[in-house]
């Protein structure tokens, strides 16, 4: 059984229904990419998994989120708190949402293993220093004493990753962890994070809009479009033979080395706004293959020759 299994969840926030029928699972030792453009519901999906939806006034109206055999929906806040940080850790895009500006770096990492693993002050410090070193930060002892503002953005994000690893979680949810960083720093952090996750056999849910990062790091991919799953497939299949036209078009939008000038075409139209979702398949106004059926009826997420896709006229 998968470590985390999300089955058909729908979310409402006030009168809006930003997510509909989101389905995917992650096994131990697996890196799952969650990709999509802005407004597709990537971060909201992360919030569902973390049980943070009530904080923004949202609620899950349908479906289940089963983590290690337990349904997280309806779990009392006190139980969720035990899971968060200890068994499911979050890495967010902006490291300063996770770091307290007036507490030393060391104390913030120590606190995680102290709280969740019950380590003594010395043991927690030793563990933090080890983690800092594993993230290839030079002079761990000096960093342990430093305040967040003394570090660069890339260093701060590494500290947040160290904090996420400190309690030995089973699942890490990383929401665009390198989007705010420069490319050379991004490449290093993705590499280190993937290495650590693989070494420890953790599950990683990597949320990103960057198909290059997905290609480099993930085992399987869920593609979201306008609050629904368009496709879920293995990494090789997603790039070699995508089953949903949106996936295919999305990959075609990335310039490749050696590509002929003038051959880069975008997807016509724009991502629909949540207040104005089209009927039927939400991709139909932008799809070159849309038929009458696509405008009338939302396609179900179904098994194809590989993976799952929600398309009436799915490519083989």
């Amino acid at each position, binding site marked *: 059984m998968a470590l985390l299994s999300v089955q058909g969840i729908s979310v409402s926030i006030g009168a809006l229904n930003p997510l509909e029928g989101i389905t995917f699972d992650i096994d131990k030792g697996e890196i799952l990419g969650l990709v999509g453009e802005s407004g597709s519901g990537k971060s909201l999906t992360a919030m569902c998994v973390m049980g943070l939806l009530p904080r923004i006034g949202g609620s899950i109206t349908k479906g289940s989120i089963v983590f290690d055999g337990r349904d997280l929906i309806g779990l009392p806040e006190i139980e969720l708190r035990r899971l968060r940080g200890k068994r499911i850790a979050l890495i967010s895009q902006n490291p300063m949402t996770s770091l307290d500006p007036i507490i030393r770096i060391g104390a913030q990492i120590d606190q995680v293993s102290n709280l969740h693993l019950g380590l003594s002050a010395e043991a927690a410090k030793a563990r933090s220093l080890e983690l800092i070193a594993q993230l290839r930060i030079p002079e761990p002892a000096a960093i342990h004493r430093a305040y967040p503002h003394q570090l660069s953005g890339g260093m701060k994000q590494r500290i947040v990753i160290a904090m996420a690893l400190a309690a030995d979680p089973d699942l890490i949810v990383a929401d665009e962890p390198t989007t705010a960083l*420069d490319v050379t720093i991004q490449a290093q952090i993705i590499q280190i994070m993937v290495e650590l996750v693989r070494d420890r056999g953790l599950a990683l849910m990597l949320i990103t809009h960057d198909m290059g990062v997905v290609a480099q790091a993930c085992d399987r991919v869920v593609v979201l479009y306008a609050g629904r799953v368009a496709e879920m497939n293995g990494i090789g299949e*997603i790039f070699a033979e995508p089953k949903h036209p949106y996936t295919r078009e999305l990959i075609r939008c990335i310039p490749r080395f050696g590509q002929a000038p003038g051959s880069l075409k975008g997807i016509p139209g724009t991502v629909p706004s949540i207040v104005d979702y089209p009927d039927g398949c939400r991709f139909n106004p932008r799809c070159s293959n849309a038929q009458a059926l696509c405008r009338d009826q939302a396609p179900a997420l179904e098994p194809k020759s590989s993976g799952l896709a929600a398309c009436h006229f799915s490519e083989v």
Partner: protein
Amino acid sequence: MDASVPRDDSLVTITDLTREFSSGDGFMKPRRTMRAVNDVSLDVPRGKVTGVVGESGCGKSTLARLVLRLLEATEGKVIFDGKDLATQSQSEMRKLRRQMQMVFQDPYSAIDPRYTIRRALLEPFKVQGEAKTAAEGKATVDELISMVGLSPRMMDSFPHQLSGGQKQRVGIARALALRPSFLVLDEPTASLDVSIQAQIIDLLESLKEELGLTYLFISHDLSLVRYFCDRVVVMYLGRVMEILPGAETQPRHHYAHALLDSNFEPDPTRRKIVTMLGGEIPSPFAKIPGCAFVARCPAASDICKRERPPLTRLGDGHMIACHNPMD
């Protein structure tokens, strides 16, 4: 230096351009100066796309503003179409600005939120003191709007009613209003989704052909720059590290190589082990006597610490500033 020799085919020639900024008032805080752009020379060939790529703090946006004289240079020259920008009077500069326009990263901050699209597109003519009758104005706006692929229905919309991609199209239409020959594109797609980014790049490509434009394209995205640009200028900490004559040319500067190596291709069969650069980008206030990249360079030798490598010619259009280039 080769790059500074004005050539017939270059629309813009930049020679030894430097811009300093200072912080601290010298009273409570010591005054410190940084060189955001440090002795940069390059030319922008007519009818081509010259790309400037680098990470944050490399001076690429400052360079963009200096080239249009939106910022005054501390030292050095920008020659546009044979005219030295620094010696132009304000009114001459205003006339010259018809020729050179900029497209900004964030189109929302470039357009007054209280202006309709129609008014925003007519504003450049007003600034230039060019009166238009209502009919002329409508014809102009119609033409501009269809040129960038927007529907005429949007003329009376406000910026907040448009999506990011549509706003950027308005930004481009406005830059084109006065029929310039030269556009500086400062990360025009950095805040857009990839499907929209590709649309905008496609549009910029066809406008360039149609109108015979010359572009200076500023970006941090190397794969985009390699696709879109005829020449690629790699900057680091205010300095030019390497100028590549085309996308196929392999970089020989260690920084340019690292930048390329950090770029993940959208192809899972081509995963790679990234070479880890040691250290961080130094503070822009640091005074570095030698090569700016010396602290992180795997091939750094003594001379790199002492002497700044000059930008020298490697081959046709290929320039490099490195004492120990890669093979």
